[in-house]
């Protein structure tokens, strides 16, 4: 994978290999916090921040601690711990500098800990043997892709309040249908760039 430019990976992570719409990771908070654009954007920003930095930290730990010692089987548990600790840090940071966002995100901020998109990004980084720069690009792009998807669906759901949805489809059901349609739309980007 060393020959692929980080820029290509960045674009691919946002559009063709969108972590949410291509891999369907991070669905829980995607469905739960996508009712308003501003909170969705806030959560998205937090996810971008966390994915970018945790991929960098996890890259360092994986390649400089776990691989030399032959402990790659520990990667899952260590990645989760690093993500959890980092989310704690972000929580303190957000509470200090943006109390309004802190209260708007509420329980979902600590829930980033178990956002599978973030662990997914770290694991893809290993499976695909990315270099450090590629990992950062992938982490950042993965976060941006997730944010793009959640903002798009939040916009749609905000508009949907004024449309007549059949009763059995109201709420999460219609959101799932829209997500499926959005995923198919994103497949239109498929030919643009390819990464495995």
């Amino acid at each position, binding site marked *: 994978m060393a020959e692929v430019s980080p820029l290509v990976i960045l674009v691919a992570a946002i559009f063709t290999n969108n972590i949410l719409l291509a891999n369907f990771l991070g669905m829980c908070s995607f469905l739960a916090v996508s009712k308003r654009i501003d909170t969705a954007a806030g959560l998205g920003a937090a996810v971008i921040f966390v994915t970018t930095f945790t991929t960098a930290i996890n890259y360092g730990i994986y390649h400089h601690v776990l691989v030399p010692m032959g402990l790659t089987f520990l990667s899952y548990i260590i990645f989760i711990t690093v993500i959890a600790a980092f989310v704690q*840090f972000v929580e303190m*940071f957000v509470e200090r500098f943006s109390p309004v966002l802190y*209260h708007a995100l509420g329980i979902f901020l600590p829930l980033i800990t178990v956002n599978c998109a973030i662990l997914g990004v770290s694991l893809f980084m290993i499976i695909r043997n990315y270099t450090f720069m590629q990992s950062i690009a992938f982490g950042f792009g993965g976060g941006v892709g997730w944010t793009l998807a959640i903002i798009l669906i939040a916009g749609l759901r905000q508009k949907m309040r004024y449309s007549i949805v059949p009763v059995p489809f109201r709420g999460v059901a219609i959101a799932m249908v829209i997500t499926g349609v959005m995923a198919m739309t994103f497949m239109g980007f498929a030919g643009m760039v390819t990464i495995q």
Partner: protein
Amino acid sequence: MIFFLPILVFAGILVALAVVLTVAERLLVNYGICKIDINAGDRVLEIEGGQTLLSALIESKIFIPSGCGGRGSCGYCTITVVSGGGAVLPTETPFLTRSQVRSGVRLACQVKVREDLAVRIPEELLNVQLFTATVENVRRLTHDMVETRFELKEPAEIEQRPGQYVQLQAPSPEGPVFRAYSISSPAYATGIVELVVRLVPGGIGSTYAHSLKEGDPIALTGPYGEFRLSEDPDVEIVCIGGGSGMAPLKNILFSVCERWPNRKCWLFFGCRSARDVFYLDEFRELAKKNPNFRVIYALSDHDPWDGEWDGETGFIHVSVDKHLEAGDVKRHAFLCGPPPMIEAVMKVLDEKGFEEDDIFYDKF
């Protein structure tokens, strides 16, 4: 060694993360000492930053009313923050009106002290004290109502006005919480506080109040409430209540009859059935002393099998309609009871020519 290595590496990473988090907490969550300026320089508190305004004030012996213990679910702890409180949080907006938000009213339990604050607190609340007391007498009034009288210890006297309330401290799984109850003992009885509490199944405060026995130590804060009784003896007092809304009315009527033995007053009280009737004898006794005091109880759900009933039957607003004559008299009405009752009575009072400003009510 092969077994220890993974454990050591994992533990090492955990320790490193814990150290980083501890350092971050020191830097980010430490706000240092913050100043709280109360009523433009009346009093300046210096407190540890990072806690909520409510707990900072309680720590400094300023007892802001709070029913839920700081979880932001009751909306009682409103105070005006003049500067330094940050933006209004989504957790507060359901409890504040637009004009309140514009004038800086906040929920004290949601405002975190991060910088120097300036707040305005009504004088009344600054006079609120923490009382310790013991249970002097417990009297079962009906199957679900209990009258509990506390003898005040420290301070030994309370200066209350009829219609005010206290907050009883009750234990809960998440630490002590406060629950508001109107004072039912008359204002002239300064050494005691009497409450009338209906048992709400699963309720923290009422379960606690019903479990109290003679001699139990308790703590309460008060008095709260801005309500003032008209001092003009020519103004007639009309008290209308139902269900568990007896406490403030009893306080008003006994205090009024003590101070103005001939002042014209009424009590309309609605109960469901004969077994829910209480205090009727006490009020009849009071009526003997004050010839201008009339007591009318009505049963909405009277069952002849419950025994003799010589009072009214039907809803209380019907009795109000029947007995109260429309006329050109200055009257104040005090309503305390369930919302549907209040609404029905308000309509009747409107027909009787009451001004909106002359009706005071407490819905629950």
